[in-house]
């Protein structure tokens, strides 16, 4: 019997008593900490801590060519690196499927909710547009990279300044942003469905679901992962919990931004 089977049995046993390995409730998120603008060389940056998971998102902007099917829009490029510094299981080298899936899910959440007003990033149609590079660096891996990276990406975008001066295009200005979707990830092991999985929970999980909701509570992106399955009923439960939790996270982010602004004014 491998270690993970023992761990799984233990976590499933705990879940039958309504408990999680770190004593959280099934619908309880870990504490979120956000530090914005910590990388001076980047156009925007943010470090997010989700419990013991730490990720760093950096935004760089360069001039480039638009895609032929959207000649008057800026370009968004998202990449995630699972660097060996973050976990004994991460290896160096080109991104593998886990890193690719992570980057694409974060990208989709941001792209589909139209967080960045890409139409305002055109300088000359067909010729020159802003390319926004969003790079996600995992620093410490304790589960739920999807939500941690989405939050870091959003927070970093919030601090992003378009470097117009460096390219002699006038004055620097903030990146034009719209509403922001918040993503919530759940995993299922045994009969338990828990929010914001820690590494232990991710390792024993049968199935995973990430759902991204906008301000109105509409769904913007979904990704199911792993080999296990969900029933329609379970999906209903998940969406309900996600609605509540996203509200809480949004309130937390709002309060934080409000406080920052006050501090700046003072």
């Amino acid at each position, binding site marked *: 019997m491998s270690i993970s089977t023992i761990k799984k049995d233990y976590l499933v046993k705990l879940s039958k008593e309504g408990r999680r390995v770190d004593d959280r409730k099934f619908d309880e998120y870990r504490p979120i900490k956000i530090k914005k603008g910590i990388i001076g060389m980047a156009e925007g940056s943010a470090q997010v801590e989700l419990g013991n998971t730490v990720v760093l998102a950096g935004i760089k902007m360069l001039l480039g060519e638009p895609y032929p099917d959207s000649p008057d829009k800026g370009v968004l490029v998202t990449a995630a690196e699972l660097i060996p510094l973050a976990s004994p299981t991460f290896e160096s080298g080109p991104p593998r499927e886990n890193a690719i899936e992570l980057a694409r899910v974060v990208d989709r959440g941001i792209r589909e909710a139209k967080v960045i007003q890409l139409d305002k990033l055109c300088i000359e149609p067909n010729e020159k547009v802003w390319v926004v590079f969003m790079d996600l660096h995992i620093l410490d891996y304790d589960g739920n990279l999807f939500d941690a990276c989405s939050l870091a990406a959003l927070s970093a975008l919030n601090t992003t300044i378009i470097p117009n001066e460096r390219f002699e295009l006038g004055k620097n200005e903030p990146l034009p942003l719209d509403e922001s979707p918040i993503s919530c990830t759940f995993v299922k092991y045994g009969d338990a469905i828990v929010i914001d999985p820690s590494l232990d929970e991710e390792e024993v999980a049968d199935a995973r679901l990430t759902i991204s909701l*906008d301000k*109105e509570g*509409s769904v913007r992106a979904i990704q*199911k992962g792993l080999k296990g*399955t969900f*029933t329609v009923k379970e999906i209903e439960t998940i969406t309900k919990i996600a609605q509540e939790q996203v509200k809480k996270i949004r309130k937390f982010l709002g309060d934080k931004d409000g406080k920052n602004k006050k501090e700046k004014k003072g």
Partner: protein
Amino acid sequence: MNKNEIQLIKKGKRIDGRRPDEIRPIDIQVGILNRADGSCYLEWGGNKVIVAVYGPRELLPKHLQDSTCAKVNATYNMAAFSVEDRKRPGPDRRSREISKVTSEALSGVVFTEQFPRATIDVYIEVLNAQAGTRCAGITAAAVALADAGIPLRDIPVSCAVGKVDDTLVIDLTKEEDNYGQADMPIAIAPRTEEILLLQMDGHLTMEEFNTGLELVIDACKKVSEIQKKALLNKYGSSLG
């Protein structure tokens, strides 16, 4: 691109004349390849997909083996000529993500514990793409797995629901995918309605999401009947 520049629904009919809940015509042929252990050719609307299954066979290199179960390794690949602008051959980020979610979806129904240390390789080749290729790929892969005699809990099936002109529609066309408001592919085990794959991008209200889920599960069941018919066509006589 203005999303409203094309009117996608006129008088309750879609751009290709379908009703919102109507799937495109599907044709499935079973066992069309000689070398493969199981295979399937599927046409779905304008999509043309061919799938080969090899295995169970030894997974190499050995360190990738799982001593408790087989791995299901699906590879989704688009032919360079299958899309409008030539696709550079080889895996890109999109196809690698699709390969991953497809492998996971198929693993959900295979009795993998019967074949420790083995791999079941599923090669999905998209020859002509007209939106919904991952659904077509999974649907065809399911038939190919059955053709290969792999023990399955159920024959998985996949379809997509989307939103165009504020209407929920099943099995999107290319135009509906490009100019529509949402796209949600799903794969289920039709007997139990367990969800094997679920992805979504775009914009759906909670109500639309719940209704869409119901609609697309119904559509999956229709596709499932076509899969079963194709398998019965090939193997029905041997059942006596």
